[in-house]
């Protein structure tokens, strides 16, 4: 049986790059479904999506990346998808890496797979700025310390989930620092999380959802939230 695969594409003010991203996915494999979550964009993202008949959900107000991605997981759960792939609308993620990303899910070797910029074979492409990398290492070390599982790229938004995780995330999904917190939750619940190497590009348009990355306040917030997540109780799906 061919698995039903859905691309969840969160988009906030991505009028420059959204169409290119979608065409790239369609030309790579026309059988893959797409849902764009327009997170209350104030530019022409909504008009572009509607004019081109691209399946999309227009959030009535901006929820941030976490709320937008979770809407995609809710849609995937409602429509019985087997695999959901988180794919940025700004051209950062590489379509050629998608097959590698979903392979562990198709072989039932993992429940959740993250595309990592920092795994040995993939030290090419956009690696993020020096200060951000320090932040990423600190977050990764904290997750490792709290969950006893090592991660290399806890802020990567290039991810794929199987049906179990789709249903889990449709009811429980962290909103404030979704990427590192969601990894922490999955590790805590002993879901099978795997990282595969991935090459990322620089953003083509839009704005990063992380505004004050280098600020100590942001880091403190992330580390505190990871600690809280490690203390909380979650029910496995």
């Amino acid at each position, binding site marked *: 049986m061919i698995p039903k695969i859905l691309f969840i594409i969160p988009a906030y003010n991505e009028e420059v790059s959204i169409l290119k991203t979608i065409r790239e996915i369609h030309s790579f494999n026309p059988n893959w479904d797409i849902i764009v979550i327009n997170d209350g964009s104030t530019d022409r993202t909504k008009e572009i999506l509607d004019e081109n008949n691209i399946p*999309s*959900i*227009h959030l009535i*107000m901006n*929820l941030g990346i976490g*709320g937008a991605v979770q809407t995609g997981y*809710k849609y995937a759960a409602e429509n019985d998808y087997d695999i959901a792939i988180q794919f940025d609308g700004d051209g950062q993620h590489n379509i050629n890496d998608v097959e590698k990303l979903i392979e562990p899910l198709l072989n039932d070797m993992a429940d959740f797979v993250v595309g990592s910029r920092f795994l040995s074979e993939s030290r090419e492409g956009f690696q993020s700025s020096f200060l951000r990398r320090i932040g990423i290492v600190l977050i990764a070390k904290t997750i490792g310390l709290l969950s006893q599982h090592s991660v290399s790229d806890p802020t990567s938004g290039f991810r794929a989930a199987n049906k179990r995780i789709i249903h889990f995330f449709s009811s429980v999904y962290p909103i404030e620092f979704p990427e590192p917190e969601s990894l922490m939750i999955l590790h805590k619940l002993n879901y099978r999380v795997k990282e595969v190497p991935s090459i990322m590009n620089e953003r083509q348009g839009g704005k990063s959802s992380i505004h004050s990355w280098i600020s100590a306040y942001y880091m403190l917030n992330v580390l505190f939230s990871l600690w809280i997540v490690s203390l909380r109780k979650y029910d496995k799906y």
Partner: protein
Amino acid sequence: MLPIKFVIEIIVFGFLLIALVVYLVHQNYFSVKYSLIWLLVILSFLTSALIPNFIDGLRSFLGFEILSNMILSIMIGLLILLTLTLTIIVSGQKESIRLLNQELSLLKAKVNK
């Protein structure tokens, strides 16, 4: 014992605040549930002012030299408590708004299909 002038001022101020809270509930600016915490705070002030020697006894029990210091400290404590309560309420509402937004947007997308 509190000076009688001060007791009268507390009573007048307390009743004015009660009237304001009841008015706000009546006009639907306040829900009954959230007005209760305010009413309880005001009533506890009124009662402590009306019971003779209560405030003075409390002052010496808590170890305050000056009465105004104790009243200010209690007020700050109560305000912190109220702010914490409001933070809990706001966080819960934020969660509900997110959920409503997601469900409504999903439904809209389904209807417009």
